[in-house]
């Protein structure tokens, strides 16, 4: 068996090499070579990820940690940061998801991007993204993680603005990067706080040093530090208040949305919190904030999703909403559940994005679902796989989403830091999710066709449908490794593999054991309730959009003001623009005009004028009259002589 250091090196460098190869020949428009290089590069990574994972499984649960340090990156005083990478239970799963889903999406891209002239550049960026994402998850210190953290933001910037000739798309890329940067700035501050509190940035050491005592003050170092890190996470993972970039990020090619803006990058925030769970758990205030923000985001984004007509925008808001669930989970201390949802979400959301990509591709770049409908018969495979994703996301058992979402909801209710309101928010979100997802299905695939006569929808090629099928399968079975205890017991002692796997690296909330157990009946009841709510909501949507297509318009009219608010996304973008961006630009302009040009320069000119004034005063003496000059000599002589004589 290969040694793990070499495997990690291969894992990381293979996409980098792919990036370089495609980057050097970026002018080429041969999609086959570019796609092959990139896909094989990620494929190699995937194989090494699997091998690494197998090695990890072989180790005993306490020592499941494969660490490697390639070189010392920074070493100043107490700050010692290595280019070190660690595969453990959490990052092991992440590298599987990243490279696995990544490979599928690369494969899909070969078909999706084949007509694009910049295809080689596209694959180069994609490989670079995989490289950075791997650094993010494998980095053994916060700083190394931050390298990947910013790196993926950069790739996201490049890929969102991939079609840069469109000003709006380039602007979307910029918006994504800058919004992320706000989060990153907070992340840096969080790092500083933790560094000066614990004296290290190494994640393993930090987790080991995390105090056992709960910190109740808002101004405690750990609370502030984790809050800052969480603000960083809201940037990367599109939570309130920094979620605004993600819907715009849909300007990028659809596989990018699937890979970066659904499956991997946006989950980095959740991953980071899970990674640092021993520290976060010390700061209940932070946890509370995380949970509330997560729940709020889940509901808010879901409501916006209700009114969108762009197929990708609906999915984008859905992603924001699902990320909200993950934060809700980690916020109530259910780190395992958060990670679980991260994984299943990666499967079904990637599936749905790729499905939407297939639809867009088949519809010749049409994204408006009002101009779709009845695509079921044109695109059977896409429809079927999309259907699986739909069932997964609305939480119908036994699809993947059910298990993870249900666990989150249950823990939001039952965990010591949970609350019934959080559960209610989660359930409301689930209902909304079911509604808008069914609406999406209905408007896109079902009902009567509203497709333009000139457009002839067609099913996509094999390179695109194979990834769909694989992801579809994962959307079904992906949840079976984390079957809740109650169901497991009922079905005959199926263990919760997921929980066992993560147990050594996840800290439990201090008092969780006492409450969680022996509430089987409540758990069953809540589970049933959430499924019931989702089903009712889905059926309502089906009725509204398929059985009685006109009824949605009536409802829209009936609740006009509310609809307007939601349809305009609560005017958040506008508010940011008119309250933050525009004032900033105006301030800058006036700073430049009033302070730089009109104050500082004027001041210096004043000084210069004073010198000039002095000069022109003396200039009078220099009047060219020789006798005057002679007089100066005379006066000088008199003065010097009298000085000499008087002494």
């Amino acid at each position, binding site marked *: 068996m290969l040694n793990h250091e070499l495997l990690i090196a291969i894992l990381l460098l293979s996409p980098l090499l792919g990036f370089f190869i495609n980057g050097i020949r970026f002018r080429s428009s041969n999609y086959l070579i570019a796609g092959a290089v990139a896909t094989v590069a990620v494929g190699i990574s995937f194989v090494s990820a699997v091998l690494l994972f197998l090695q990890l499984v072989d180790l005993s649960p306490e020592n499941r940690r494969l660490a490697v340090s390639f070189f010392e990156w920074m070493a100043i005083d107490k700050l010692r940061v290595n280019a070190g990478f660690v595969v453990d239970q959490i990052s092991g799963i992440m590298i599987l998801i990243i490279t696995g889903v990544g490979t599928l999406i690369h494969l899909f891209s070969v078909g999706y991007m084949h007509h694009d002239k910049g295809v080689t550049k596209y694959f180069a960026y994609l490989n670079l993204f995989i490289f950075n994402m791997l650094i993010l998850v494998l980095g053994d210190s916060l700083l190394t993680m931050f390298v990947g953290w910013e790196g993926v933001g950069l790739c996201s910037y490049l890929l969102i603005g991939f079609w840069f000739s469109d000003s709006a798309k380039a*602007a979307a890329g*910029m918006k994504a990067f800058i919004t992320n*940067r706000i989060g*990153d700035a907070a992340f840096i501050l969080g790092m500083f706080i933790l*560094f000066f509190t614990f004296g290290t940035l190494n994640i393993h050491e930090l987790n080991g040093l995390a105090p056992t005592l709960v910190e109740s003050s808002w101004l405690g170092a750990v609370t502030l530090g984790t809050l800052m890190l969480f603000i960083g996470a809201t940037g990367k993972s599109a939570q309130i208040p920094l979620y605004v970039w993600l819907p715009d990020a849909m300007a990028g090619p659809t596989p990018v949305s699937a890979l970066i803006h659904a499956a991997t990058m946006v989950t980095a925030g959740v991953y980071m919190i899970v990674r640092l769970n021993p520290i976060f758990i010390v700061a209940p205030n932070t946890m509370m904030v995380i949970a509330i923000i997560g729940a709020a985001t889940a509901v808010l984004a879901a409501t916006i999703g209700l009114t969108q007509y762009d197929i990708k925008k609906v999915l984008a808001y859905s992603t924001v909403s699902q990320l909200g669930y993950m934060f809700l989970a980690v916020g109530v201390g259910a780190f395992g559940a958060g990670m679980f949802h991260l994984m299943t979400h990666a499967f079904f959301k990637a599936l749905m994005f790729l499905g939407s990509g297939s639809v867009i591709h088949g519809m010749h770049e049409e994204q408006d679902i009002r101009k779709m409908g009845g695509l079921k018969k044109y695109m059977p495979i896409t429809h079927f796989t999309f259907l699986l994703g739909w069932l997964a996301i609305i939480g119908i058992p036994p699809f993947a989403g059910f298990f993870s979402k249900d666990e989150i909801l249950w823990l939001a209710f039952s965990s010591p830091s949970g609350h019934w309101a959080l559960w209610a928010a989660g359930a409301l979100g689930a209902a909304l999710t079911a509604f808008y997802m069914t609406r999406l299905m209905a408007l896109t695939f079902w009902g009567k066709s509203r497709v333009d006569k000139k457009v002839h929808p067609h099913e996509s090629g094999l390179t695109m449908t194979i990834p769909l099928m694989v992801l579809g399968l994962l959307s079904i079975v992906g949840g079976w490794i984390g079957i809740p205890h109650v169901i497991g017991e009922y079905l005959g002692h199926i263990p919760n593999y997921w929980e066992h796997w993560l147990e050594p690296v996840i800290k439990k909330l201090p008092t969780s054991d006492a409450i969680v157990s022996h509430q089987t009946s409540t758990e069953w009841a809540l589970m049933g309730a959430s499924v019931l709510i989702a089903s009712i909501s889905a059926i309502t949507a089906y009725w509204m959009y398929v059985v009685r297509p006109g009824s949605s318009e009536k409802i829209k009219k009936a609740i006009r003001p509310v609809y307007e608010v939601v349809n305009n996304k609560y005017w958040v973008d506008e508010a940011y623009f008119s309250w933050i961006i525009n004032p900033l630009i105006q301030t800058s302009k006036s700073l*430049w005009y009033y302070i730089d040009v009109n104050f500082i320069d004027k001041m210096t000119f004043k000084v210069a004028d004073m010198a000039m004034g002095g000069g022109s005063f003396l200039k009078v003496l220099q009047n060219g009259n020789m006798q005057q000059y002679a007089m100066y000599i005379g006066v000088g002589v008199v003065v010097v002589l009298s000085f000499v004589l008087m002494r």
Partner: protein
Amino acid sequence: MILSGLIFLPIVFAIVMAIWPQRNTTRHVALGFSILEFLLSLTLLQNFDPESAQLQMVEKTMWIERFGISYFLGIDGISLMLIMLTTFLVPIIILAAWNSIEDKRKGFFACLFVLQAAMLGSFLAMDAILFYVFWELSLVPMYFMIGIWGGARRVYATIKFFIYTMSGSVLMLLAIIFLMRLTPEVTGGSISASLIDFYKLQIPFVAGDFFTAQTLLFFAFALAFAIKVPLFPLHTWLPDAHVEAPTPGSVILAGVMLKMGTYCFVRWVIPLFPEATEHYAWIFIAVGVIGIIYGALVAMVQPDVKKLVAYSSVSHMGYIIIGLFVMNSYGVNGALYQMLNHGVSTGALFILIGMIYERTHSREISKYGGLAAALPLFTIAFIIVTLSSIAVPMTNGFVGEFLILLGSFQYSPWMAALSVTGVVLGATYMLWMVKRVFFGPAGEIVQHSLSHKEHALQDLSVREAVVLAPIIILIFWMGIFPNHFMDFSKTSVEHLIQNKMNYTLSWKGDGN
């Protein structure tokens, strides 16, 4: 003798350039000379002992016996990398200016070499008067560079540049003379202008009383250097000078000359006036923070690319000042590193702007747009340099900025929190500019080039690629393996931090 060679070889070059008979080969000869100088400076790395915090390769001879002024050169970890930066940038500048300097080429290269000598001299001089001579000498060629080869408002810019910097150095000269008068205390009766003797002085300091020797001297020096840096309220000469300067002038101005200011803070102000530095550090840190934010905000709304980058320099130099004045090893190491980074990346930005200006004769952002489609390679280079400038990890900028912020956090978390906004604003103005220049639909200039065959935009030529390649390699090298560079300065910085209250330097080997 290497150090004297480093300083005087460019002067010899300058003389040769001035009398070089052939116009056609001027550029080649100049390039050859500058590369020779760079190779010579590489031998410094070979001979330098990074384990020692003391002066190395010292050369000392009496110059003006009566006033104790000596010809005293030395190098330590703090100056080494800046010297390398200077010698590294000059060949690149010459190659970058291959076609842009059309008239009076000989004079230009002569100026460039004199400037190089003066800058190296002020980094190497360990004698106050010798240093002052080089410091002032560096103004003269720059003055001519802007004044002769500059843009439309060059006279205004030159005079502003010259007067600003000059007025600062007058106070410095006074302060130097005052210090020289104090030296008999430590040398046993004879006056001395040696920096080493200055270090030994214990200048009286009374906290809170402005009119004490140390405070006044501190501000006299600091003002001179702050103008050069330039710090926030004294920065207005910089945008004008940059905008009017020819590309090579801008590069050397941003790349090296601004570093003279920050370097001198480390070399002069901090070790000479430790109490005053500590007592008044907050002023400089506050001004640095204001500079970061102010520079970034003003950069954001500039209509001219070059001016934008000039203001971004103000912002970046704010970081360096903060790093220096927090006086911990994170901050100072980071600041020293950031000096190199800023030299490399802002220098590269000016080179790139020069290249685009040669093609389009415009620097107005609003006229651009859609350049990425026309000049893909150029765009890639520009974006890489931009990333370095906004401190994306794995580029050089990140290492410096991170360490500075870390140091400032140790000094005051609030300052760090404020200066972190510069990270966001920096990304904003740079990316916004990139978006407006390179992305979006084809702008006025690109459309013009598309409709006029004779004005078609050419992507990077081989020469330009050769100019940019070492810079880009350096950007990543410095970002991924900072230790290769920091190891040279760490010991010296550590020495400075450990002994900041009674800093001394000695030197080994020969000499008296």
